[in-house]
């Protein structure tokens, strides 16, 4: 039973998340009926599930909540901000309801009864204004019908002081219309009696009002005019372009359409409409079916096992290739090549399975921004781009906290108050863009705000006052901005409820480092701040370059590598300032043999791998370059947790272990080491 409950809670959590996303969408597009349907459906599923697993409290609660949206979709209730606010509060409450331990908490009880009352008030409004609203459209039947109206006024209608055009105007105010005025009875100009009416009209009117209302329009002229009102069908035929066109053609040819002809056309049109409706319905059904068939739930344990097995397979396949190379057995090579191909395909698919779109995470932030903008009284437009970008699920899980912190910072310190914004010539409404996109083998996530930006001078002064940097040290703007990531640096002048709770940007950076990511800040004072997070696509595999240093293999991530040069040994060991001229430009370099405390090599030629380091090129000197290698990354274990110049290790085809370098951290470490 426990495992069922666990399953339920898992599913319910997912449903509640979905509900939240749907509600946020609905808040933006309150007119969208499909969203109301979606909200209702999710609540309904949640209700059904909780009843099935004996969560009665959730069952009852959702039942009432669902009723609101049932009424909305039946047009008995109008969606409003108070309703949405209550619903959001309910969603929060539902989350806490999943944990039964909360049930005895007095706070929980007050919230619960408070929300139940609020829901009740929405479902059964006893206030008078509710009635007024429903009284305002008493004739509304909800169904639109199309009528054919032939109006032939009496020739001396003008003598009664009636203008038939007014009548037509009144008629047309009832709904959609198409008027055909017929002038075929108008005599030659010499014979016209200006006091007489020769014109008659045929009107197609689509309205949700009763036939009697149409009669009421003509109530004063009905007795001495020819009036024919005929219902064509319960559809809005006026909106049907093909039908109108045909009627227009008919009117042109015949000068006069006539009820019989129109009825015939209307019949065809209605059957067409019905056909289309049926098609649309089945299409929707198919779409729903497709969605359910296209994904299945798999426990993440199974996926982890699959990933491990595939990793093993990749390693074993590398061994097989090596074996086949060393032993020239006829017929083995093609098989090995085939296995290699299949393994690669299998690996690609297996790795794509654990990639999930970042959508869910971003959805959560929509809610965060919504709540924060209310709390801080800052109007903010929150734009999400690239929510379909896919990332390893472990990365996404670990990204939540740092991103939340960054967004809170943007909301709290970044976006200014409306009056300040207006004074600075900015739109009163702030803007925060959260976007994700692919860039090579990485995914970039950016949080861009158009707020106050960061003042580098202020940061610098503060860092000096906190003793984080020496006052006389010259620093570039980028270096200064990077100071905000230092532990013990918090720029908030006042501690607010939202940010500045002691968790600084240093924690953000650490968390992102933990998932092999990097974080950068770029800011223009008065214009805004952009925080860029660069992440690997997946944590467990990287494309690398296999190199050797002192006969030990190492893997350098291919994404960091710019170029490789073969350089004579003398050039490297005879330079005292650690600069080397390659392709006409001087770049700093580090000899990895030297930095790893090894003897200089005896080879005449050494390889300089030029890698990107914070927008600069830095050379790393190794003995040999062996070739490209797909490395399955394995952790070095807890014992090496403080030793992060290697992001892990990989097992080569012959069973030896190669260390995978983290070039950024290696360069950082050596650069600091050399300065000291």
């Amino acid at each position, binding site marked *: 039973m426990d495992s069922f409950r666990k399953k339920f809670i898992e599913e319910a959590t997912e449903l509640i998340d979905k509900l939240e996303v749907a509600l946020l969408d609905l808040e933006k597009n309150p007119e969208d009926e499909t969203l109301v349907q979606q909200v209702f459906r999710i609540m309904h599923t949640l209700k059904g599930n909780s009843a099935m697993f004996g969560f009665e409290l959730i069952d009852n609660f959702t039942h009432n909540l669902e009723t609101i949206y049932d009424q909305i979709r039946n047009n008995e209730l109008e969606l409003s901000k108070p309703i949405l606010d209550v619903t959001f509060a309910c969603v929060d409450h539902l989350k806490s309801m999943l944990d039964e331990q909360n049930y005895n908490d007095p706070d929980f009880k007050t919230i619960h009864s408070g929300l139940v009352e609020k829901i009740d008030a929405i479902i059964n409004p006893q206030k008078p204004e509710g009635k007024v609203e429903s009284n305002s459209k008493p004739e509304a039947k909800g169904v639109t019908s199309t009528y054919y109206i032939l109006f032939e006024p009496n020739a001396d209608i003008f003598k009664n002081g009636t203008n038939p055009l007014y009548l037509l105007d009144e008629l047309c105010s009832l709904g959609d219309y198409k008027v055909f005025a017929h002038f075929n009875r108008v005599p030659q100009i010499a014979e016209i009696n200006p006091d007489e009416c020769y014109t008659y009209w045929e009107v197609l009117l689509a309205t949700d009002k009763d036939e009697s209302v149409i009669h009421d329009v003509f109530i004063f002229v009905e007795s001495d005019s020819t009036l024919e009102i005929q219902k064509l069908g319960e559809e809005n035929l006026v909106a049907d372009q093909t039908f109108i066109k045909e009627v227009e053609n008919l009117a042109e040819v015949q000068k006069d359409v006539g009820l019989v002809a129109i009825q015939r056309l209307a019949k065809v049109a209605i059957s067409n409409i019905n056909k289309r409706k049926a098609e649309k319905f089945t299409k929707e059904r198919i779409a729903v079916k497709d969605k359910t068939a296209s994904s299945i739930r798999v426990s993440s344990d199974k996926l982890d096992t699959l990933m491990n097995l595939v990793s093993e397979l990749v390693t074993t396949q590398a061994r097989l290739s090596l074996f086949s190379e060393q032993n020239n057995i006829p017929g083995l090579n093609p098989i090995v090549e085939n296995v290699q191909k299949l393994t690669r395909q299998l690996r690609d698919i297996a790795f794509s399975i654990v990639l999930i779109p970042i959508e869910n995470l971003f959805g959560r932030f929509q809610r965060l921004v919504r709540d924060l903008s209310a709390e801080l009284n800052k109007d903010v437009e929150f734009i999400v781009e690239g929510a379909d970008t896919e990332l390893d699920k472990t990365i996404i899980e670990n990204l939540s906290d740092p991103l939340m912190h960054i967004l809170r910072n943007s909301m709290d310190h970044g976006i200014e108050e409306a009056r300040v914004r207006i004074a600075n010539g900015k739109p009163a409404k702030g803007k925060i863009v959260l976007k994700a996109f692919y860039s090579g083998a990485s995914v970039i996530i950016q949080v861009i705000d158009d707020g106050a930006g960061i003042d580098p001078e202020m940061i610098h002064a503060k860092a000096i006052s906190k003793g984080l940097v020496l006052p006389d040290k010259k620093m570039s703007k980028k270096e200064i901005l990077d100071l905000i990531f230092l532990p013990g640096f918090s720029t908030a002048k006042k501690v607010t409820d939202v940010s500045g709770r002691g968790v600084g940007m240093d924690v953000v950076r650490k968390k992102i480092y933990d998932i092999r990511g990097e974080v950068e800040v770029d800011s223009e004072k008065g214009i805004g701040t952009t925080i860029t997070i660069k992440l690997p696509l997946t944590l467990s595999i990287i494309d690398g370059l296999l190199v050797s240093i002192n006969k*030990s293999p190492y893997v350098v991530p291919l994404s960091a590598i710019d170029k490789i040069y073969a350089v004579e040994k003398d050039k490297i060991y005879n330079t005292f300032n650690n600069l080397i001229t390659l392709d006409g430009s001087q770049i700093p370099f580090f000899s990895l043999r030297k930095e*790893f*405390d*090894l003897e200089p090599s005896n080879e005449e030629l050494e390889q300089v791998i030029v890698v990107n380091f914070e927008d600069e090129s830095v050379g790393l000197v190794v003995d040999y370059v062996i070739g490209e290698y797909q490395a399955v990354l394995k952790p070095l*274990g*807890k*014992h090496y947790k*403080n030793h992060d110049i290697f992001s892990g*290790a990989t097992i080569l085809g012959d069973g030896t*272990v190669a260390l995978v370098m983290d070039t950024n951290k290696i360069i950082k470490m050596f650069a600091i080491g050399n300065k000291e």
Partner: protein
Amino acid sequence: MDKDNKNQIKSYLTFKLGTEEFAAHVSKVLNILEMTPITKVPKAPEYLKGVINLRGAVLPVIDARIKFGMPEAEYTNNTCIIVLDIDVDGESVHVGAIVDSVQAVVEIDNSQIMPLPTLGSRYKSEFIIGMAKIDDRFVIILNMDAVFSTDDITQIVDADSLEDTVTENNE
């Protein structure tokens, strides 16, 4: 295997470092490997010898001599890697320990385990469960979790008494 069962097992694996004989509870020992080439990790603390490939996983290897504050020795045919399952903050971590030689699996009853004499002991008490006498030899029973945890600076020998055994200065 739950905790009670583990405690009921009285088997200990004994191994030697220099002349000293130590014992580890068998529930902590996963495997005993012959010495294999170790991939050195540059810039790591000295006692962390590097990593090896243990059936497709990467296993960190610790030189028990250095960790125990003893001088390093040449590896011989008897040198072994004991693969240990260490509990670090409630998490199971695998680590290899290089020892001079593996002796035997012996039965030690809880009643046989004597507390370490507080005076004159060279070992820090938190790393030692106790001592036992086996065939006239004294064996030191180690708390493997404490000894091989990830803490960089663990030295199981009290610094004051180092001069007794250590001929050259390690760290």
